[in-house]
């Protein structure tokens, strides 16, 4: 056989096998989480507080609520700031130096390991108020959301066809109307995609929460207090080594995995159908 053909066949076989084998960890993790998490799932799991150590039963209701509350607060801070910085980058930064300074800061913020954002929030908020608080968690997670939302907004607005802008200018519309009601409106799909993906991303973030909201065995009664979250519950319970808690950790993992993968799948399917923006 022609050695060139043999080589071709060899490369083809090896790269095919490698490519198929990376699906293995995904299937394994998903199957594992479903199999080990299902036994924990029942009505009580969603509605009850964690049982005290050593006792069976109980649920993770406060952690589900806590994750939702922390995510909502982070989104309230992070998404508007991300959108505003994106609008500025795309529409208003005529000065190249200011643009690249702000762009570099936001890009760098995206590169900061999340544990360092947690450490920062701990230092500037938790240590000042003197106790763990969900507000500090929202601050840290908002810093994670800002860069991707900003980038999605900027790219979405930049890719709006020049004809649309020209048409708006020809109508004699003021700049703010063109920016918000024309260009931003056209780019909205990209902004929503970016925001949802960053929401999914923070739903799984754990390291910053260890230093900020920590954990609580009770229902949240306010936002300026320690708060349970699914992420920290998974970490604490998995590391505890106590059978009942480990099962709960798998159940919580199943819930978290469902949320994250669902958002990702839906967003990607929708954004593919819209062909970009």
């Amino acid at each position, binding site marked *: 056989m022609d050695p060139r053909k043999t*080589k071709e066949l060899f490369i083809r076989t090896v*790269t095919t096998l490698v*490519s198929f084998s*990376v699906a293995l960890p995904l299937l394994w993790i998903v199957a594992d989480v479903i199999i*080990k998490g299902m036994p924990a799932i029942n009505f009580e799991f969603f509605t009850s507080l964690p049982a005290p150590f050593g006792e069976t039963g109980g649920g993770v209701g406060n952690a589900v609520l806590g994750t939702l509350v922390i995510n909502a607060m982070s989104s309230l801070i992070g998404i508007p700031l991300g959108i505003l910085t994106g609008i500025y980058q795309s529409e208003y930064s005529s000065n190249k130096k200011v643009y690249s300074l702000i762009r570099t800061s936001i890009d760098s913020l995206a*590169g900061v390991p999340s544990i360092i954002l947690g450490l920062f929030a*701990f230092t500037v908020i938790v240590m000042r108020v003197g106790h763990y608080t969900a507000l500090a968690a929202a601050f840290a997670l908002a810093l994670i959301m800002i860069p991707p939302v900003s980038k999605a907004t900027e790219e979405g607005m930049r890719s709006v066809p020049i004809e649309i802008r020209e048409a708006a200018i020809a109508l004699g519309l003021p700049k703010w109307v063109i920016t918000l009601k024309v260009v931003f409106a056209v780019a909205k799909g990209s902004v929503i995609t970016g925001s949802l993906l960053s929401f999914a991303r923070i739903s*799984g973030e754990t390291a910053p929460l260890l230093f900020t909201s920590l954990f609580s065995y009770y229902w949240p009664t306010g936002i300026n207090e320690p708060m349970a979250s699914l992420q920290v519950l*998974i970490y604490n319970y998995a590391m505890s080594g106590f059978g009942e808690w480990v099962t709960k*950790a798998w159940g919580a993992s199943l819930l978290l995995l469902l949320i994250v993968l669902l958002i990702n799948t839906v967003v990607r399917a929708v954004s593919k159908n819209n062909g970009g923006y």
Partner: protein
Amino acid sequence: MQKIPSFLDSAVKYGALAASISVAGIFLFLFLTLFSNSIPSITLNGLDLLLGKIWDPNDGVFGGLPAILGTIFSSIFSLGLALPLSISISIYYTEYAPIKIRSIISTVMDLLAAIPSVIYGIWGLWTISPLLKTHFQEPIAATIGFIPIFSGPAYGLSIFLASLVLTIMITPIISSLSIDIFSKTPVHLREGMFALGATRWEVCRKVAVPFAKRGVIAAAILGLGRALGETMAVAMVIGNSYIWPFSSVSIFSPAHTITSKVASEFPESVSNALQFSSLTELALVLLVISLSINLVADLMLKRVEGGG
């Protein structure tokens, strides 16, 4: 009539500017906070924080070398495994894969990248670690354990396991980026090679690989950056012990990284000022490495996009 729009014009403009400046300002503030909180450690520990081997808060000794080496070793080890995998996937994707399979591959990559790291952690801790211990580490330690880096006892939780989990976490990131870069190979060059009777592998090796090389290196650097800063998955599977690499050089022994060290000690360190400062300085070291790595990768990717 004229006044309202011009007011709104400046409101939108300066609102957006204020948001941008405050985000940039927060980033600067983060850097300065870490730096100023590191000063006690920089003055009292000196180079010991970077080069010392012993970490004992009760004695006031803070040597960060094992954690720094743990971070470097696990990241480079995982990159060494993830890079060939990613290149293979990119080659299969761009040269051989039918369209349907392509979309499956990109979905798999997206979903793998989306799985929260704490779930990688629980999977590594409760599923992979016991399997790895009995079916891989123990047999190897029993046969070639006389080589120090493979010596037992095998704990399961180890720097080796941390590197494996990191490999799975960074492969989708590197693959997605290098698939993008491979896909940008100029079509006329590829078609020219095919017209000369080249096989797909020859086209790939002579055209696509040289074209994509710089971009793939940039993708690898970004993957490395991700591995350096990963916390939860590592903290859950690395065994959190300071014995590696000075008391035991074995890759099967538990170890620490900067992130796992900070995660396990930082909140309790508020009562020990020097420990608090030392951990902050370790975090600062990690921050500087991560930022430099991202900057280099960004510059390389921009050059690929601009000059390609």
